[in-house]
């Protein structure tokens, strides 16, 4: 027994130099650990970011703009309001050698309907049937018109039918088998994920042979990782430390406007002061967003006039922010009969968005200045979102970014009157309700023509801003740090995913 142990230890010691050499060509530190290696287990961008290296969707969105491009499908068409046809790429193989066919696509979307495997119920349940006329054609028919169906196809990663059915859930959830540019090597939970280049990748083998992604949740530790050159690229640079990092000559800071907009959601429940559009306008004009950007966000944000970002279908370049004008706010309040103010509670999460709590505090100060009696109610996101779903708050801070790049779904979830039977208004926590807006949202879903649809979505967006159904604050800024010694060309993506095949030398 003792001998065995000694032999083991000696063997391990001998293996040491080998291990030390096995350092990866590219090391990336990120702020969020992977939850699972099942590509459908979690639909946050933080987890999809890992999956995008092992798997491909039918379509993809390459950096920097994130425009829809072919991936496992080479072309796609919306045949009519309900039917979508995808022509698949030939000659693609999964990492285990199995050929990729239409059967795998059908299997993937059917599995996505099972709550035990999938958090993509929304898109999967919208599918009524999947036909596979031949090995390289897939035809989806949806229950209702889903105009953004193809727009989400970069998020729905295709799994191998044969091995997925064979493996138990423990294996399936920890060892991904996809068609992606990188093959899975090792996942040591809490430490790192290692991957190696897939030499047979259909786009050609990626530049870096071995890649390691390290999740570091603590801000100051993540800073230390780049300062001590333990990582080549750092995503999620903590805002308070940006100046410190910029001073370091060995590190380059790369940033781009994020897709996520931060806004104050406001309702119009009859009987509350918010029912009067003048009150909503007064609140909007009392908030000094430029000051929030320069002080709370330290310049790492862009003021927003609307909730969708520039890349989203439905973004309207004509929309302008209301000016900051507290005097005008007071006048509007007086006009509406609230000269002496009223009681208002500002709710929000304190662990979800960049400086969320500080933004709420700033908004509270601005509203106090126009004479409102403000109560602040910020709390951890798990409790806050629970309260949101029971419509407890009339006025709160929240952020939104829709993975589909289409304002249609956002409008249904955020703006439409709360209607559980139709699945509308899930995130309309303040219960804003406007029958005209509801009609416009319903009508937009059936429009097939892309330009016509874009105009319809822009009209919804414009109306929501003009009627002050919400008060947009700013778009966050995604900040990365790149070690100059690493000699890499890194282009950030709009969705913050770290897709290693897009990183070049």
């Amino acid at each position, binding site marked *: 027994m003792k001998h065995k142990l000694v032999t083991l230890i000696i063997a*391990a010691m001998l293996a040491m130099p080998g291990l*030390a050499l096995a350092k990866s060509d590219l090391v990336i530190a990120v702020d969020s*650990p992977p939850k699972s290696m099942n590509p459908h287990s979690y639909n946050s961008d933080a987890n999809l970011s890992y999956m995008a290296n092992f798997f491909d969707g039918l379509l993809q969105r390459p950096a920097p703009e994130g425009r829809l491009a072919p991936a496992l499908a080479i072309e796609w068409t919306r045949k009519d309001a309900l039917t979508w046809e995808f022509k698949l790429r030939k000659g693609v193989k999964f990492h285990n050698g199995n050929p990729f066919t239409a059967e795998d696509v059908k299997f993937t979307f059917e599995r996505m309907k099972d*709550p035990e*495997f999938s958090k993509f119920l929304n898109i999967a349940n919208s599918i009524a049937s999947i036909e596979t006329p031949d090995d390289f054609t897939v035809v989806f028919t949806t229950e209702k018109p889903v105009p953004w169906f193809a727009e989400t196809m970069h998020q729905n990663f295709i799994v191998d039918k044969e091995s997925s059915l064979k493996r138990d859930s423990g294996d399936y959830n920890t060892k991904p088998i996809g068609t992606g540019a990188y093959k899975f090597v090792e996942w040591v939970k809490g430490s790192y994920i290692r991957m190696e280049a897939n030499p047979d990748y259909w786009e050609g083998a990626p530049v870096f042979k071995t890649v390691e992604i390290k999740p570091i949740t603590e801000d100051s*530790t993540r800073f*230390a990782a780049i300062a001590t050159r*333990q990582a080549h690229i750092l995503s999620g640079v903590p805002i308070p430390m940006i100046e410190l990092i910029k001073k370091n000559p060995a590190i380059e800071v790369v940033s781009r406007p994020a897709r996520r907009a931060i806004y104050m959601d406001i309702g119009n429940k009859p009987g509350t002061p918010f029912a009067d559009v003048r009150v909503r306008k007064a609140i909007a004009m009392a908030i000094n967003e430029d000051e929030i950007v320069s002080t709370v966000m330290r310049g790492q944000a862009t003021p927003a006039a609307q909730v969708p970002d520039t890349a989203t279908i439905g973004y309207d370049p004509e929309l302008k922010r209301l000016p900051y004008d507290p005097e005008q706010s007071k006048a509007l309040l007086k006009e509406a009969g609230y000269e002496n103010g009223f009681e208002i509670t500002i709710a929000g999460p304190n662990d979800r968005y960049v400086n969320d709590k500080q933004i709420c505090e700033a908004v509270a100060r601005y509203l106090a200045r126009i004479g409102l009696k403000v109560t602040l109610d910020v709390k951890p996101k798990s409790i806050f979102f*629970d309260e949101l779903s029971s419509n407890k708050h009339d006025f709160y801070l929240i952020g939104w970014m829709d993975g589909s790049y289409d304002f249609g779904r956002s409008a249904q979830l955020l703006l439409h009157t709360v209607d559980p039977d139709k*699945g509308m208004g899930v995130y309309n926590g303040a219960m804003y309700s406007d029958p005209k807006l509801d009609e416009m949202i319903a009508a937009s879903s059936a429009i097939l023509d892309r330009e016509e649809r874009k105009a319809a979505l822009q009209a919804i967006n414009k109306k929501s801003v003009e009627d002050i159904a919400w008060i947009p604050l700013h778009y966050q800024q995604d900040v990365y740090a790149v070690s100059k010694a690493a000699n890499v060309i890194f282009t950030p993506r709009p969705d913050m995913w770290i897709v290693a095949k897009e990183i070049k030398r």
Partner: protein
Amino acid sequence: MGRYIFQRICQGVVVLLAVSFICFLIFRFTGDPVLMLAGKYATQQEREQVRIAYGLDRPFYVQYANFLGNALKGNFGKSYISQVDALDTILERFPATFELALTAIFISLSAGVLLGVVVSIKPKSLVSRLIMAGSLGGISIPTFLMGILWVMLFAVYLEWLPPFGRGETVQIGPWRTGFLTLDGLKHIIMPALTLSGYQLAVILRLTRAGMREVLSEEYIKTAWSKGLSPFTVIVKHALRNVLIPVVTIAGLSFGELIAFSIVTESIFQWPGMGNLLLVSIFETDHPVIVTYIMMAAFIILAINILVDLLYAWLNPKIQYN
């Protein structure tokens, strides 16, 4: 004796029951896991579908009874997030935490006793005063501040030690160890120092108090007057009698180090159980949280019982009846 052990085990079971019940009570106020489970774009109906699929629609007492029934069979449920067995998820992280706690307790015991003896021999010297002031810092400076200061000093400015993680590890059967590689050893120094800070100060002060009491005893004076060497007097005659309470405290705190190394682990991105717990709380992953807390309670209870029994064995004057 056998009766005493039986009693203690019964008490332990009651404590575990109470702990799990309190966990379930608290879960009712920590947010709805369905929101996370159903995904970002789920409609209200899809949320209900998920609620039923996970049995979260059933009343509180039914959920609790189900949990207890399964736990008795050793099944603590699956993590909501990773869909992997909750107990396995935690046990996978156990070696990292255990090695960290072991190193920390080793540092606090050896350094604590050594410094305690030094301080008790020359209590008025400058060195002793400095050590005592330092120990006050060890007790009062919070772990997270200590950890960040270590990182700033040794990793960022001096660049002697790596700032985070466990480094290269070696897998031996089910155990992944960092003790066998130079890289792994370098990585454990700072987190272990941080974690040991408080215990070190406590052990130092305990040793000092004990030593000062013992050094004034008659038998020590006799030993000095016999002309024995200072080493024999201090180590063999005095320290031996001081060590029993010190070792007891160290043993008891070992369980706490394993169960509550959360702050240290999160500062150093140490891939242990504490780190996992923090992420699980953030994501409302109830099965992992309750399993972790049950396990922590179990470890502390087991160590307590063990220390009590060892006590009786070491000191025959103590009897449990």
